[in-house]
C-alpha cells in the first residue's frame, strides 16, 4: 500500500519540495515549515500562527491520514510540540521501519470548499488533467472531469461546471460562491507543469481549499520518474 507503482523507478517528492515546485508556478501554497524535533515544531507553530496542521513527511507514506500521520487544528505551539511526539509514537508501521524526513507544520487554511486538481500521464494519451470535488471522499463520489492539455482557462472553468457538485462552488444554500478563476488557474498550471516536466508522472493537489477570493493548496503529492 505504501509503495510507488510497481515496476517503475518512481518516487513521491517530499511535500516541501512539491510545495516549492508549485509555488514556482505561482500557485497558492499554504505557509509551512519542516520540523525535525518537537521544539522545532513548536517554534514553527509560533512563527506561522496557530492553529496549525502537522503532517509526517515520508516518501513511503502517500496517504498520511490513513496511518495516523496527520493532526489538524493544533491550537497552541505547546500542543504542536506534543503532537510531533504523538504522531511519531502512534505511526503504523513504526517510524523505525520508515524513512522519515520530519514533520511538516503548516498553517490551517480558512474553511472553504475542498477541491482536487490532479494530473496523470497515460502511456497512450499523455498527460490528462482532472478536477473534482476534493477531500477524502474523492474516490467514493467520483465527481471528476478530465481534459487533455493544452488547457485554456475557459476550458478549465467548463470542467468545474461539469461537476455534479458545481453548485457547491457557485454558492449553495447561502454560502458564498467560490473563486472559480483561481481554481481554473490551478488546473491550467498543472497542465503547464505536465508539459514542462516530463519526469512528473502524477500530481494530486488534494485538497485545495476554495475560498470566496482565491484558493489554497494544503496538500500536494507529486510522483516523479527517476
Amino acid at each position, binding site marked *: 500500500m505504501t509503495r*510507488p*507503482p510497481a515496476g517503475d523507478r518512481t518516487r*513521491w517528492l517530499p511535500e516541501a519540495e512539491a510545495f516549492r515546485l508549485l509555488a514556482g508556478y505561482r500557485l497558492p501554497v499554504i505557509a509551512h515549515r519542516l520540523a525535525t524535533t518537537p521544539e522545532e515544531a513548536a517554534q514553527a507553530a509560533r512563527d506561522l500562527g496557530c492553529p496549525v496542521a502537522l503532517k509526517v513527511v515520508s516518501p513511503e507514506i*502517500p*496517504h498520511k491520514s490513513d496511518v495516523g500521520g496527520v493532526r489538524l487544528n493544533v491550537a497552541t505551539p505547546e500542543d504542536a510540540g506534543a503532537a510531533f511526539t504523538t504522531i511519531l509514537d502512534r505511526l503504523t508501521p513504526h517510524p523505525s521501519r520508515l524513512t522519515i524526513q520530519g514533520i511538516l507544520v503548516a498553517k490551517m487554511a480558512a474553511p472553504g470548499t475542498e477541491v*482536487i486538481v*490532479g*494530473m*496523470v500521464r*497515460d502511456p*497512450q*494519451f499523455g498527460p*490528462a488533467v*482532472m478536477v*473534482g470535488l476534493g477531500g477524502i471522499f*474523492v*474516490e467514493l463520489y*467520483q465527481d*471528476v*472531469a*478530465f*481534459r*487533455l492539455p493544452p488547457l*485554456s482557462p*475557459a*476550458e478549465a472553468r*467548463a470542467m468545474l461546471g461539469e461537476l455534479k457538485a458545481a453548485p457547491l462552488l457557485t454558492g449553495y444554500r447561502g454560502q458564498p460562491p467560490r473563486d472559480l478563476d483561481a481554481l481554473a488557474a490551478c488546473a491550467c498550471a498543472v497542465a503547464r507543469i505536465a508539459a514542462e516536466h516530463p519526469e512528473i508522472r*502524477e*500530481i*494530486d493537489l*488534494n485538497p485545495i481549499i476554495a475560498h470566496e477570493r482565491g484558493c489554497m493548496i494544503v496538500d500536494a*503529492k507529486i*510522483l516523479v520518474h527517476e
Partner: protein
Amino acid sequence: MLHRAGFLLATGHPLRIMSHPLDSIFRPRSVAVIGASNSPEKFGYIILKNILEAGFRGPVYPVNPKAAEILGRPCTPSIADLPPGVDLAVIIIPAKAVPQAVAEAGQRGIQSAIIISGGFAEAGEAGAALQREVVEASRRSGVRIVGPNCQGVNIPPHGLCASWPLLTEQGEIAVISQSGTVGAALMDWASQEHVGCSAFVSLGNRCDVDETDLIDYLAQDANTRAIAAYLEGIKDLDRFRRVVSGCTKPIVILKSGRTAEGRRAAESHTRSLAGRDELYTALFRQLRIHRADSLEDLYDAAKALAYLPRPAGRRILTITSSGGSGILATDWAEWSGLQVAPLPGPVAETLRSLLPAHCIVANPLDLTGDGTAALYRKVVEATAPHFDYQVIIFGDPILQAADVVTPGAPQLVIFLGGAEVERQERARMHQKKVPVFPTPERGIRALARLFAFDGVAA
C-alpha cells in the same frame, strides 16, 4: 457511364481525377475478386455476387486459376493476367498466400486491396508474422490495405458492395466499424428504414488503413454528412486528434471496452479515477466527437446528426396525438436540457379557433386520438415561428403523415403505434430525408445531440 468528378475519354474509358489517396477504395473504376469461388457458401462467391447485384458500374474480374467462369463472368487465372486499370482487389484466399497476392497486385498496378481472409494477428503468433509480411508487401508495393480479417467495404452510391449482407440503400451516414457485424447491423437498420448509408468500411485488424485515414477521406466525401464509428481503440492518437480537429462533419463513436480497463489500485486519487474510459470521454469531448453508449444510440445519433438541421435554440413544442407519448417526450426533454416553453397566449387563442374543442392546447399540444394529417399541418404552420424546434409525434396510424413534415425544417419526427401506416409513412419521410425516430426517448435524446457541444470551447 460517367463517373462523378470525372469525364470520358474518346476511348470510352472512364478517367477520374484522383483527389484522395483512398479514392481507389471508395470509388474504384474496376474491381478484381482474388479467390472468387463457385461455391455459394463461400465468401469468394457471396462477395462477387454482391458486387454484381449491387450494380457496380465498372468491370468486375473474378480471379481463380481453376474455374473458367463464375456467376457468368469469365475468370482470370492470376493477378498477373488481369488487364491494366484495375484499382481495387478484394482478397479472399488462405492467409499464407495473401502477402504474395498483395505484392502481385502492386506489380499489376492495383492501388488498394480489401483483405477479407482471416488467420492474421487475431490468430496467434504465426498469424501475426503473416500480417507483418502483408504490411511489408503493402509498403514495398504502395498497395493500401483494408483489413485483414474484415467484412469488406460497401459504398452504396458507387454500387460497390464488396461485403455482406447485400445492402444497397443510399444515404448520408458513413459507417466505420472495428466489428464487421456491428457495422453491418447499423447498415442493415439504415437500409430497412430507407435511411441508407454513404459508406461502410469494416476495419478488421487495420494493418494499414485505420479509422483516421477513413475520417480524413469521409471529411471530404460529398455523399457523407455524418460519420458513425464503432471502435475498440484508436490506433494513432496524435494523427487522430489532428485529422478530427480538421473535420467539419459531425462524428459519433461507440467506444467499447469501457469497464475496468486501465484501472488499478493506485497511490494518487487522480490515477485511481483516470481509467482509459475517462480519458476517451475527455478526448472525445475536446474533439467534439459525440459519444454513443449503445448500438441503438449510435444509430439514432448518426441519423440526427446527418439529417436534422441545427437548432437556433432549445425551446421546443411537442405536437402529438398520444398524450402518453407527449408526457414521455416532455420528461426526456427536461432531462436532456431542452425547454418545454408554454404556448404564447395569442398563439393558443388562434389554435383554439382552428382545432376541435377536445384538443388540448398546451405544450405538449395533444390533438388526441383523432388527430389527422390536416390537423397536424394546421398546428405545425401556426406554431412554427414561435419555437426553435417542433417535436411532432404521430401516435396512431395517421394517413399522409409524411405530408405534414418539411425536409430541412427544425422538426423532430417520432412515429409509434401506427403499424402498417407507420411503416409506409416512415419510409416516405426517410425518402424525403426527414429522419423518424421510434420512441419519444430515442427521438429526444437524438435531438439533444445537436446541443451537446454548446458552450464547449473550440
